[in-house]
C-alpha cells in the first residue's frame, strides 16, 4: 500500500510552473531517489510531499490523508508524527546541543522525559556520535551534524523520511557514511525514504530512481 501518493501535482511560482502535473507513489519502507538538474522542481516536490507547501493543482496523500484538505494545525501534526526531514545544510538549531536537537522532535510530540531519554540514547548510539552528544552544532563537523539531523528526523519513528541532498554538503567519506546510516536505519525502522540527490551512487542505494526534468518525471516507474 502506498504511504505517500501524488496525482497531477502542479505548483506555480508566479507565472512559472515548477511542477507540471506530476504523479508518484511511495510504498512503506521503500527508498526512492529523485534525480534531475537544478531547478527541475525536486525540492519543491519534497516540500509538497512533506506538507511544507501546498500544490496549486492535484492531490498529495500521506498515509491516505489528503494534505490539501488539512488545516495548518493538522499539517503540523502530520509533520510531527509521520514525516521526518533532512536538509542539505543540516539546519541544526545552533542554540541546542546535539542531544537536544534530537530531543526536539520528541518534545514536540510531548513524549515523557524518560521515553525521550531512551529513544535519544538509542538513536545517538545508532548514528555513532555518543562522544559528541553534548557538543554545540558549531563544534561539530559536517558529517557529525548530518548524523544528528538523521537521528532527529528518525526520532519520532516517521512513516516517511524526506531528505534534500543529504550528502550535498559533505565530503565523500562522510557522505558515504551518512548514506549507509540512512539505508540501515530506514531498513531497521521500515521507514520510506524520498531522497533528492545529484549523486548516482546515492541513488543506487534506493529501490527506485525517478528522474525529473522541467517539473515532470521523465524516467523511472511511478
Amino acid at each position, binding site marked *: 500500500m502506498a504511504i505517500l501518493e501524488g496525482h497531477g501535482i502542479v*505548483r506555480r*511560482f508566479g507565472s512559472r510552473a*515548477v511542477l507540471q502535473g506530476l504523479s508518484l507513489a511511495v510504498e512503506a519502507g521503500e527508498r526512492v531517489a529523485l534525480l534531475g538538474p537544478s*531547478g*527541475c*522542481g*525536486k*525540492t*519543491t516536490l519534497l*516540500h509538497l510531499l*512533506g506538507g*511544507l*507547501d501546498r500544490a496549486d493543482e492535484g492531490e498529495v496523500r500521506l498515509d491516505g490523508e489528503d494534505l490539501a484538505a488539512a488545516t*495548518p*494545525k493538522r499539517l*503540523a*501534526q*502530520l*509533520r*510531527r*508524527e509521520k*514525516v521526518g*526531514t533532512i*536538509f542539505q*545544510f543540516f*539546519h*541544526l*538549531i*545552533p*542554540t*541546542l546541543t546535539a542531544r*537536544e536537537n534530537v*530531543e*526536539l*522532535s520528541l*518534545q*514536540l*510530540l510531548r513524549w515523557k*522525559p524518560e521515553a525521550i531519554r531512551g529513544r535519544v540514547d538509542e538513536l545517538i548510539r545508532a548514528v555513532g556520535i555518543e562522544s559528541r552528544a553534548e557538543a554545540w552544532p*558549531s563544534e561539530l563537523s559536517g558529517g557529525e551534524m548530518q548524523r544528528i539531523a538523521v537521528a*532527529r528526523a528518525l526520532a*519520532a519513528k516517521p512513516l516517511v523520511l524526506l531528505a*534534500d541532498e543529504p550528502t550535498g554538503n559533505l565530503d565523500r567519506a562522510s557522505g558515504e557514511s551518512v548514506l549507509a546510516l540512512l539505508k540501515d536505519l530506514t531498513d531497521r525502522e521500515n521507514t520510506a525514504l524520498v531522497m533528492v540527490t545529484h549523486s548516482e551512487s546515492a541513488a543506487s542505494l534506493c529501490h527506485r530512481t525517478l528522474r525529473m526534468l522541467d517539473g515532470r518525471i521523465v524516467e523511472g516507474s511511478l
Partner: protein
Amino acid sequence: MTGSLGRRLILRALWREKGRALLAMLSVALGVSVFLSIRLANRAAVASFEGFANGVGQGSDAVVRAEVGPLDEAALPRLDAIRDIAWVRPIIEGSFYRARSKEAFQILGTDLVGIGNSVDSAAPAQSGSAPDPSLQARFFESIQNSDAVMISGAFAKSDHLLPGAAIQGFVNERPVTLHVAGILLDAPGRPALQRNLLVMDLPAAQETLQRPGQLDRLELGVREGASPQQLDSGLRGMLPKNWVLEAPEQRASSGKTMTAAFRFNLTILSLIALAVGAYLLFQAFDASVNRRRETWATLHALGCEPARVLRFVMAEAALLGSLGSGLGIFLGWLLAQGSVRSISQTVAGLYGASSATHANLDPGEGLLAGAIGFLVCLLAAWIPARRAAHTPPVQLLARGGETKPTRWVLFTLTGLALTGAGATLAFLPTLPPGVAWHAYVASVLVLLGGSLASVGLMPLLGAPGTAARGWNARLALRPLRRPTGRHGFAAAALAVAVGMATGMGVMVQSFERTVQTWIGGNLRADLYLAPLGSVGAASQHRLPGALADELAADPAVLAADRFQMLPIHLRGQETLLGAGDFLVHAQYGHVAILGAEDAAPILLQMHRDGVAHVGAMASETFSRRFGVRVGDGMDIPTPDGLRHLSIRAIYADYGNERGSLIVDRPVFYQWFHDERCASVALYLKPGQDRALVAQRLGQRHAGLQVRSNADLREQVSFVFRQTFAITYALEIIGLAVALAGLVQALLGLAMARRGEIWTLRALGASEGEIAGVLLGEGLGVALAGTLGGLSIGLVLAQILVRVLNPQVFGWTLRFSLPWGFLALLLGLALFSATAALLPAARWAARLNADREAEEGA
C-alpha cells in the same frame, strides 16, 4: 562622490529594501519632527510674551519701562522732542476674567487711533472694497467708549461674537461688562493674534483697570530716514529717573527666562526620540550592511578600495538622512500646530501670559533640527560603514555572520564604566550656582553607559534557558545568552526611552511631593482669597486695600496676611519684590527658612526693625540668580529712588523661576505707596466653620476666588498634571520609537533564523508554537531594556533632582520614588512590547515557504 557604480549600488539596494529604507527614513523623520515641533511650539508660546507689537502694530525698536511700578503718563510730553525721529506707543496691560467660560484674558490698552492704519476691523473693512472713510470715522469714535473692546478673530469665531456683543467678567474683583467694538483680523505676514487678547483704547483701558494716568511701557519705533542710534542719543538724558530703555529682545528674553525650566524640560524630552532613533538607525544600517556582506566581499575581491566602500555606505546614509530630515521638518511643523495649544495652555497656566494657537516654521529652527537629523544619520552609519570597508572578504562571507554574538561583556563593562564616570562627574563637589555643564555631560554618559550595560542583562535573563527542559523555553531564552548586535541595539534603545521616562517621572514626583510638603508646611491659613483668574506670581490681578481691610475685619477672622508682588528690575534682570504681614506670619503662619528651625524670631525682628533697617527674605532662586547670601545688602529701585535692605533669611520657594525678595508690608507701603494686594490669607477664629465662611465670603464677593488649603493643594496637582501632560506624550513617543525598534530587531532576528524556523516547521512545530518562541525571545530583550532603563532612570533622576534643579533653578527637591508610576511604566513597556511583538512573531512564524521553495526548486 561615489560615481555611477555607487548610485547603482545605493539606489538599487534602497529600492530592493524599500521597507528598511522607509523605516530608517521614518526614524530620522520622527526624531527630527518631535524635536522641531516642540521647539516651534515652545517658541510660539514664549513669543506671546513679546506682546502686542508683533500682533497688531508695527514691531518696535525699543521699549521704555519703569525700573519698578508703572510709568507716569504725565511725563509723556517729555518725549515730544523725539517725535520726529520715532513714534511712541503707550501701553497698559491688565487681566480680565470671563466667568462664563472660566477664561483669563489679557487687556491691552494703547492709542488705537494712533495706530489705526495697522488695525483691521470686521465692521468697517468690507472684503474686496476700499475702506469707507465715514465708516472708519464712526469706528474710531466707537472704540473710544470706556467699555469698547476689540477681540481676536479666533475668539469672535469660537464664541460667535459680533460687534455690539457684551462680554461679562471681572477686572480684579469688580464685575465689568465690555462691548465688542471690532474684530482684529490676522494680517498676512504677521504672527497670529492670541485668542485671549482684548485690545482697548488707552483711556478706556486705564478706566477699566482703574489705573488712571498709569502706563506699563512705551514702545518706540524709528521713523523712516532716522536711525536707532539717533533714537538712542535723542532719548539720553531725556528720560525721567527710574525710566529705563531696553531693546525689545530684552523683554522677550525676560519672558524666555520665565519659562526656562519648562523649556529645558521639553527640549531634553524632545531629544529622546532622536536618541532612541539614533539606536534604531544604527541597527538599521548594521542590518543592511550585514545583509549585503556578499556585495562588500565581492567589491573587495574585485579590488575596490576600502575608502570607496565606506563612501558607498555613508552616501546611502546621507541620502536617507536628507530625505528623513526633510520629511521630519514638514512633520515637525504639522505636529507643532497640535502641540502649541498644549504648551501654550501650560505656559498660560504657569505664567499667565500666553495663548498662541499656531506655530510658524522658523528657518533657523528647521535648519537646526534638519542638521541634527542628518548628522545623527551619518553617525549611526559610521561604524557599520567602517565594518563593510575594513572587514576582510573571507570574514564577510563566513556563514552565520548575521547572527554573530556581540561582545556583550565588553559592552557591559564599558557601559558600567561610563555610568560610573557620569555619576561621579555629576556629583563634583562645590561648583558655583548656575554651572551645570557637568550634569548635562553626566546625564549623557549615564544614558549611553546604562544603555550599553543593559546588553549585559540579556545573558542573565537567558540563563534559565541552559537548564530549561521545554524546547520552547530553550529556543526562546538561549539566544539571549549570547546576544547578537540586533538584540543589543533593541535593548539599548528601549533602555534609553525607559530611562528618560523613569528619570523624568521621578523628578516630577520629587518636585510635586516637595511642593506639596512645602505648601502643607508653609500655608497654614484657613482660607486664601484672590481675584478670579489669578494664577501664580505673575498675575496682574489686584485687590483694593479697602477690600482687604474689610475681609480682615470680618467677625469670623482672627488675622489676615495680605500678600503683594511687584515685578522689578535689579542688576539688569527682572525679578519680583513681594510684601507680606511678617507679624501675622510670625504669630500664625510658617515659612521654611533654610538653616533655621523657627522663622518667627527672624520675622518678628524684621517687623520690629521696620523701615529704619529694612530686612528681607530672599527665595532660594533669588539667592542663586543674584548670588546673595544672608547678611548681604541690596539697593532696591522705588518710585522715590533707591532704598537699601539687607538679606536676613533665605527661604524655600517653588512658585517661580525669577526669584523673589519679600519685605514686611508696612515697608512696601512706605516705598511704593500701594496698599493693594494680590491675595489675602485669612486665619479664622477657633470654632468657625471654614466651609461656611468660605461660602459666605464667596457669595458676598462674586469677583473673588475663595480657596481652602485643600483647594490649593488640588490646584498645585492640577498645574503639575497640566505642566507635565506634554512630557508624558513625549515619553510615549520615545517608547513607541523604541518598541518599533524592538519589532524591527525581532523581524531581523527571525529573518536571520529563518533556517531554524523552517526546520521547526518541518519537524512539526505549529505556527503558534514558533511564534511563542519568537515572542519569548523578544520579550526577553524587552525585559532587559526595561530593567536597564529603570536602573538608568534612577541614576538620571538623582542627577536631575540633586544636581540639575538646585544648580540651574535653585530648587532643592526631596528625592521621592513614584512606585506606582514605575510599576506602571514596567507594565506598560512589557504590555506594549507584547502587543507590538505578537503580530511580528506570528508573521515571522509563517516566513514564506514559497520563497524557500522557489530558491531551492
